[in-house]
């Protein structure tokens, strides 16, 4: 049984938790749903000792696990009790090879070589990574990195597993597998999410929300059925006979990656959905469409005129998976002003996206950074936009509000998602990348 009461505030920041109380019985599989910026990641970090640690801040309270207060233990000694997979996998990745990454904590635990090897091969095969033992971590895709971090946690095997948005970036196949793995796991699991996924149903025994003073029953796990009007405009962006090639992995056996797109078009004000497995080339296609990557063959056409890479960058907005990669300036207001938009429209967008103009970009949570990224490109008023897995880390209503704002402006939006519920809830055609080829389904 984990029994905790925690208070925490960041340095120079407001109180995130004030005598926040919660209990989790051992063996329970708990899913905590909360909007971005509500403190999910902070709570996860407090429990494992990543906060206050070197980041500063004031914490107070206790978290008793079998009458032992883990909050008063040094982080290194907590690892057998509690461990986590962070939302941003890059912030926890330490080494350049998969093998080093997974054996480091096991060496620190003082396990002998045989036991280490057993745990390493077990957890690598659990997450389908046996082939990647000697591969460099910089060559892994987002979903593969997520699975590696899960494998590290499962190899350490603490009493409490904390999974911070761990279904993010995973393909539907791996989401289902992870859910099954969690269901069969004989440990306490606390998972954090920003919205309920279909796959969660079978994995968790209890779904709750993050309230002001503690965990409260989740108000409604039902997806609101949206009614987003599409206003089809006259502008048409088409991709014709496109072939993209990329050398994929220097030390693996996957060779050259190739994607073929026979034909696909999107009108301004239209919404279309793009689906596909991890690493199938969704992001690569997006990069070609917005002019960041050169195609091998074929063309991108806007209203009959062929677009050069440079022209594409001004016509197609690309909202990348990791929002921090698109944010550079000190405050929210600095970012929004850099678009050259009028003060009026900035104010409107701030209100629409629930943003605070004076907030420091580098202190925003992952989900809030995504909202800022969306606000930014809305102000840039590109005629077309690509949302690369924007729905992850955002609650449904936030995501839908963003989509509605874009469509309302007459922007043609291509939504890339792994969430089958989202895919079926929003209007528009569905496309799928399968075996290196894009087709409508």
């Amino acid at each position: 049984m984990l029994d905790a009461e925690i208070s925490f505030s960041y340095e120079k920041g407001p109180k995130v938790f004030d005598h926040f109380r919660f209990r989790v019985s051992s063996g329970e599989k708990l899913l905590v749903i909360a909007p971005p910026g509500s403190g999910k990641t902070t709570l996860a970090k407090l429990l494992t000792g990543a906060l206050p640690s070197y980041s500063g801040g004031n914490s107070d309270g206790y978290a008793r696990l079998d009458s032992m207060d883990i909050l008063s233990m040094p982080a290194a000694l907590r690892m057998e009790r509690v461990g986590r997979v962070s939302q941003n996998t890059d912030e926890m990745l330490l080494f350049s090879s998969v093998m080093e990454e997974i054996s480091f904590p096991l060496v620190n635990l003082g396990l002998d070589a045989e036991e280490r090897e057993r745990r390493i091969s077990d957890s690598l095969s659990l997450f389908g990574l046996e082939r990647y033992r000697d591969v460099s971590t910089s060559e892994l895709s987002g979903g593969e990195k997520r699975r590696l971090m899960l494998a590290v946690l499962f190899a350490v095997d603490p009493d409490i597993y904390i999974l911070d948005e761990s279904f993010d970036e995973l393909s539907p196949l791996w989401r289902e597998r992870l859910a099954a793995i969690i269901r069969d796991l004989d440990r306490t699991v606390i998972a954090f999410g920003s919205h309920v996924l279909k796959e969660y149903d079978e994995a968790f025994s209890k779904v709750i929300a993050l309230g002001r003073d503690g965990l409260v029953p989740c108000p409604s796990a039902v997806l609101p059925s949206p009614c987003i009007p599409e206003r089809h405009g006259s502008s048409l962006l088409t991709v014709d006979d496109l072939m993209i090639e990329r050398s994929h992995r220097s030390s693996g056996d996957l060779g050259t990656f190739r994607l073929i797109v026979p034909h696909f078009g999107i009108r301004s004000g239209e919404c279309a959905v793009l689906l596909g497995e991890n690493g199938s080339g969704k992001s690569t296609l997006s990069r070609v469409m917005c002019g960041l990557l050169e195609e091998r063959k074929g063309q991108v056409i806007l209203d009959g005129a062929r677009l050069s890479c440079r022209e594409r960058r001004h016509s197609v907005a690309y909202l990348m998976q990791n929002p921090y990669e698109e944010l550079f300036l000190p405050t929210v207001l600095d970012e929004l002003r850099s678009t050259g938009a009028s003060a009026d429209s900035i104010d409107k967008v701030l209100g629409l996206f629930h943003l605070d103009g004076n907030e420091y970009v580098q202190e925003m949570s992952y989900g809030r950074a995504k909202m800022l990224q969306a606000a930014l490109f809305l102000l840039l008023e590109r005629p077309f936009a690509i949302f690369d897995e924007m729905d992850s880390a955002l609650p449904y209503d936030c995501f839908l509000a963003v989509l509605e704002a874009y469509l309302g402006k007459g922007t043609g939006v291509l939504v890339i998602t792994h969430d089958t519920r989202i895919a079926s809830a929003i209007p528009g055609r569905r496309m799928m990348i399968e075996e290196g080829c894009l087709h409508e389904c």
Partner: protein
Amino acid sequence: MNVSSYIYGTSFYHRFDIRPKLVSTLLFCAAAFLMESYIGFMVVLVLPLAVMAASVGARETWRCWSRLLPLFLILLAFIPLQARDGDVLVSINGFAVATREGVWMVVRIVSRLGGISCALMLLLLTERNENIIRGLRAFHIPYAAALTASMILRFIPYLGMLFSAIRDSMSLRLEEGKRGYPVLPSITALAVAAIRMIPETAASLEERGFGRKGRSTDDRLPRPRGYFLQWLIGAIIPISLLIVR
């Protein structure tokens, strides 16, 4: 971006254990500085080249060497300026183009530079970076230093990737008609992203048990077959070079 120069192979030099290989490379570099004859210069220049060609092939060897050629040519072009008061070898219209001492000096530098570069490249081409670090640990470099080196190898490609992502998205946000990317905001964004990682990485080290007592000590390199023979060969060649000079 790729930080590893390693090229997969099964040649004898690939199978050479990292520990004798490190010592041998070091001794060879020392020997390269102490050569005193034209024959010595030749050996220093050609020996690593031959091993390289045998272990990674002619194409890769040429790739490494072609990077050094311009430098060699510049050095050779400076021959007329060296030791102008020495024995004149070649002269045009009474102007000494090369002296015996000048040629000696430049050839010595070329062999040294070429020898050291090739020997070090050879090490990087035939061993994975992680393995070099494990090898260094066998010589008792501090654990923290080895750990830092491993982490540097993770952060260099990551920050390189991050920078191209930043540059890409900068160009997506440019106003119409402008090209390129603004340098200062881009490098600022990169520096901030990097600094943000420092406390997170430190916390991550501790969450994975860094600083615990009782770390396993059996993660050392095993000794391959012919280990002592490898040591012998690895030591004899550079030492005999040192003696013969």
